[in-house]
């Protein structure tokens, strides 16, 4: 294994672990509460509407929106960190198929690692009301992932040297 491969595989495993620990924490301490909160607020909203209390119904609906916002982003962070960690390990294992020198491979590795951490991080940070910071991480992370995977795919094309 060269340095770029070791970096990608080790980082991927750490990210998978991080994603799983996050998922376990969320499942134990928050997921059921979020699900119950969504159900309660939405049903309360409709019941308040049935009772003629429209202002209260709108308030409860807004509360439903807030809880759902947090729920979706927590699930997104867990699933994307876990999947991107596996994705990084796979790309690390197959890195020898890419026709770049080691310096470029290392840059590609760092780009993909940054993207794999930052994109889900940005989505999760939105739950902490860190609007601009969250957007910076998610947008730069997405760009890094797209750039990294495009560069990787380009490097797989048959090269004259290989032939």
């Amino acid at each position: 294994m060269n340095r770029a491969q070791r970096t990608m595989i080790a980082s991927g495993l750490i990210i998978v672990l991080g994603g799983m620990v996050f998922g376990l924490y969320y499942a134990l301490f928050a997921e059921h509460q979020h699900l119950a909160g969504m159900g309660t607020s939405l049903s309360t909203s409709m019941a308040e509407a049935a009772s003629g209390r429209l202002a209260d119904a709108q308030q409860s609906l807004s509360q439903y929106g807030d809880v759902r916002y947090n729920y979706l982003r927590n699930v997104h962070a867990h699933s994307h960190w876990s999947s991107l960690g596996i994705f990084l390990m796979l790309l690390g294992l197959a890195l020898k198929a890419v026709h770049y020198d080691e310096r470029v491979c290392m840059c590609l590795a760092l780009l993909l690692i940054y993207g794999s951490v930052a994109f889900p991080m940005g989505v999760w940070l939105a739950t902490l009301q860190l609007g601009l910071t969250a957007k910076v991480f998610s947008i730069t992370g997405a760009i890094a992932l797209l750039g990294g995977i495009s560069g990787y795919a380009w490097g797989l094309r048959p090269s004259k040297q290989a032939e």
Partner: protein
Amino acid sequence: MDSRSEKTEYLRRGDARRLLIIGGILLMLAGILFGDIFAVFILHPNADRIIAGLVHVANAIIAGDADKVFAYFSEIGGLLENRGTKVDAHVHAITLGYLAVVLAVLQPYVRLDGPLKFRLAQVFIVSACIMPPSIFVIHYLGLAYSPLASIGWASIFADLSGFSIILVCLLEMWGLGRYIFASTHKPEADEALPFPASWEARTLLHSGMLMLLIGFIYGAVHAGVYSEKYEQLEISRLGGIIGHAVTGDQDSASDAVGDYGILQGQRGTKIAAHAHINEFGMLALLLAFVQQYVFLARRWRRRWVLTFITGSFVLPIAVAMEMQFGLAAGGVADVGGLLVFIALSGMFAGIVRHSGMCDAKSEAGA
């Protein structure tokens, strides 16, 4: 050039790789089959019943009956939990299968004793087999006899198995770290990671990267353009249902429920298309590394690869078109999933043959 002449690695009895590859692929097969059955028999009827439930809720608002609202919502909550836990079980079975095969490929680089590695593989596979059924059972078991207020026994088992998997991965990481930080970086001489160079492996590698590229671009567009818009529209359409119901306009309230259902369908199909093409892309990369263990004739190895690639593209494309073409597209997607299942089963049969061949050679040698 077919590279069957390259050195073949053997999956011997007691080798953690063998257990992880076979266990991992079995998990994937179970997850894919379950997902196909769920998509054919449960997904759409469940969605229809949720929409019907919301129409009842709208009528209950018109009638001013708050108790009926809560009763109908209790039913809707059960339907949502039914769908959510089944999707969750499907996803976790497949993802744990992926992780098992990745760990298998990494085994030559994990500097731990062979028996310990095998024991870790056993713990991983057992835990991975407990988690998805535990998640599935959450809907049926609920909080019955649970010692906790909001977490039932099924969730407890699912969380404990997840915790075991985390511990195994930590130990694997430690073993990998010993390799990475060692002064020499050659793995055991007869267990070097073979670079996937056969036609089958290269085809899977290239098609997998193409799927991932498409999936990432599709996901980025969805995240950038549609994601927040859908969330805002969801609240707006729920508000519309309430607004029409409060004025007593039953027809408009029903239409609003229909609009809400269409929105959920649009969002759900886009997310499903993105998730599936990415997952199939990763699976293609994984399978590139196990082709050397598929002990079948060349024409069958190639047929399974082509069948897999066909199904991997058909399913997500058909899912993405489901809102335009309805259940016909859904049916085509299910066929795509079936093709992936059949191809993976074919490859699995080849891997089992390989392990049998290894056992026979060992006995002959002994």
